């Protein structure tokens, strides 16, 4: 039996039982962050805050949403938008956050790629991050089904059809996923469950894993410099804060995190109040109608690049290309054969590779929304081939890189 003494105060009372002093040292006051970083290092905190917005607004929306094909549409567009006090605000916050969280995730991912933050002990950070991306994608898609508008219905139809896997004709699998021949009540119920319970649980577990993978290797820095964290921490703790190359997560880095978060919030609430249409497609304000296919079916902007990878080919090849695009990013730590974990601008060919990949994904995103006709399908095809080629050449160009 452990020995407990009479507590000197509330803090001590908890400390004896929960070791709160150690926890706060490990997680905050002695969690060392390199000083040589820029605002891109705050994207993790921006994502945390956005996730909190999603969770809070989602809980409120869930109190009024009705997962029934007869009432779902009106429960969102009438009850929440008109009858619930500030229901419109919660819905706009939820919709805009769901869209903008992907923008931040892409910035976060490309930051990682640029600075080589997936190498030398940081592989698991990258992999857990990509798993989070997959979980968020599933969360976004399942949430998109819930208003039961035209885009919900037809996107649900198109995406679940993918599981028939072309010439394998796995129609039984598609029916099993839908619980019906077409998206209907069973479909809506299970996507509701996924959206409000199973996937959020998975996301929360993955966020914890993502943080854990970061704790031992520490975050990277702007120059890819290998720091002796123990040595630098000693300097910091001995009072030489200015001479040390590291700072404490809390409150040193946290103060910068909050500054970046506050600037992000200006953009975020501007979008919530003044420019929300990009996140809430007008077509989805028409109720689901299984007899009326919309003229253009397209996913939300953050899925467009992978949608475009699927489109220019015949069904089977398209599916293979699509599958390739879904898993290839996870493989990045193993495809990059370079011994250097430094920023792209010091890595020669890799720097070109990075910017070409970024530009190509923007082109793919644009083509994924445009109708696949004429010049757009040609541009789309070329961009997809370039995308695949980029990943094939990556191991070769990085292998040739010299150790710096």
């Amino acid at each position, binding site marked *: 039996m452990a020995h407990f003494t009479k507590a000197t105060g509330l803090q001590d009372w908890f400390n004896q039982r929960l070791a709160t002093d150690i926890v706060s040292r490990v997680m905050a006051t002695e969690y060392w962050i390199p000083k040589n970083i820029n605002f891109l290092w705050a994207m993790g905190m921006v994502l945390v805050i956005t996730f909190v917005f999603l969770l809070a607004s989602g809980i409120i929306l869930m109190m009024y949403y009705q997962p029934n094909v007869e009432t779902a549409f009106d429960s969102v567009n009438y009850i929440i938008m008109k009858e619930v006090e500030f229901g419109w605000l919660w819905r706009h916050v939820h919709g805009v956050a769901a869209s903008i969280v992907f923008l931040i995730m892409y910035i976060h991912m490309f930051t990682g790629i640029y600075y080589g933050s997936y190498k030398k002990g940081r592989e698991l950070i990258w992999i857990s991050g990509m798993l989070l991306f997959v979980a968020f994608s599933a969360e976004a898609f399942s949430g998109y089904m819930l208003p039961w508008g035209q885009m919900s219905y037809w996107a649900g139809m198109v995406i679940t059809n993918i599981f028939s896997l072309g010439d394998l004709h796995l129609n039984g699998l598609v029916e099993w996923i839908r619980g019906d021949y077409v998206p209907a009540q069973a479909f809506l119920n299970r996507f509701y469950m996924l959206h409000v319970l199973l996937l959020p649980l998975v996301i929360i577990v993955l966020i914890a894993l993502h943080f854990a993978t970061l704790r031992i290797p520490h975050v990277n820095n702007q120059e890819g410099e290998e720091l002796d964290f123990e040595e630098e921490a000693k300097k910091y703790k001995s009072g030489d804060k200015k001479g040390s190359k590291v700072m404490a997560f809390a409150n*040193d880095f946290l103060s910068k995190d909050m500054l970046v978060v506050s600037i992000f919030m200006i953009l975020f609430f501007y979008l919530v109040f003044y420019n929300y249409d990009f996140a809430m497609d007008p077509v989805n304000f028409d109720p689901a109608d299984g007899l009326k296919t919309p003229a253009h079916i397209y996913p939300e902007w953050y899925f467009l690049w992978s949608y475009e990878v699927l489109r220019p080919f015949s069904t089977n090849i398209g599916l293979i290309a699509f599958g390739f695009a879904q898993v290839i990013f996870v493989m990045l730590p193993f495809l990059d054969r370079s011994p250097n974990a430094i920023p792209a601008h010091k890595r020669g060919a890799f720097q070109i590779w990075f910017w070409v990949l970024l530009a190509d994904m923007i082109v793919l995103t644009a083509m994924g929304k445009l109708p696949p006709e004429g010049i757009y399908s040609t541009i789309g095809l070329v961009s997809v081939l370039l995308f695949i080629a980029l990943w094939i050449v990556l191991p070769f160009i990085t292998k040739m890189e010299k150790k710096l």
Partner: protein
Amino acid sequence: MRELKILAVIVVFTLITYYLVEPFAHSQMHKHVEGEGFAYSDLPALTKTGDALKGKELVMGAAACTGCHAITKEGIVAGMDPAMAAQSYGVNPPDLSNAGVVYDAKFLAALIKNPAHALKVEHKFDAAKGKMHPMPQFYGAGGDIDQEIADIVAYLQSIAPKAEELTSEQAYKLACGGCHENRYAGWTQVGQTPKFKKKQDELKFNLAKADYQDALTKYMGKLPPDLSIYIRSRGEHYIKTFVEDPQAYLAGTAMPRVGVSTAGMEKVIEYLEDSGDAKRHERESIGPKVMLFTLVFALFAFLWKKELWSKLH
């Protein structure tokens, strides 16, 4: 400085993506119609000055408008209930009390003279093929037909409320409500849904509505859509230009040109905003306050960071 450069790179790439995915993609996907501000330039201009008193005689007498149309403002009630009227004509002939303000004068004149032409539904109603529009043409009462039509229009304008007194409900009811339900506003093609005291009343109302909608579906080819949140799904520009000339967007559609006046259209939009974007005033009033909060929050965050980081560098 370096951070500003990085920020500039991110902003540029984000804006390029936004431009391509939103304004550019939509310009490529949807037909853009500019419209002509309800000028109806294909219709002949009114040349005669009408006399409302003579117009009243014509409406009640020779032109036989009141054989089908109610004018409740003048105490003339409809001969049939809406469902029965729809079964006879396809749609319920509208009450003309507010026609003089909701409809454009030039359009009204052209409509009286040749309904199918003014409504742009000649592809559907071709007299030569024996397909008559349910509203008969006015062939004149023996005098100068253009003068007589001007008199009728003058009469309709004289009994209508002034543009600034027109309510959004009156405008929607006349311009759209005969065909389009708006369940978020409680409007059906057979009238505003009342508060029912008895289950029987509710069943009767719904039966009349079902009868009306069946007749309307037969007449139009499909049931015209509910317009509850068209303001969100289509937007103001699309609605205005579509109403002005449906054929410009959708050649061959059964939807007639409505012929609304500018004032009538404004009120219709207001009605659609009230049903489909009811909390817009709240949104517009809270927006600046939240923006101010975020700015103050950013200022405090900046000061906090500055204080802590001054000890680090």
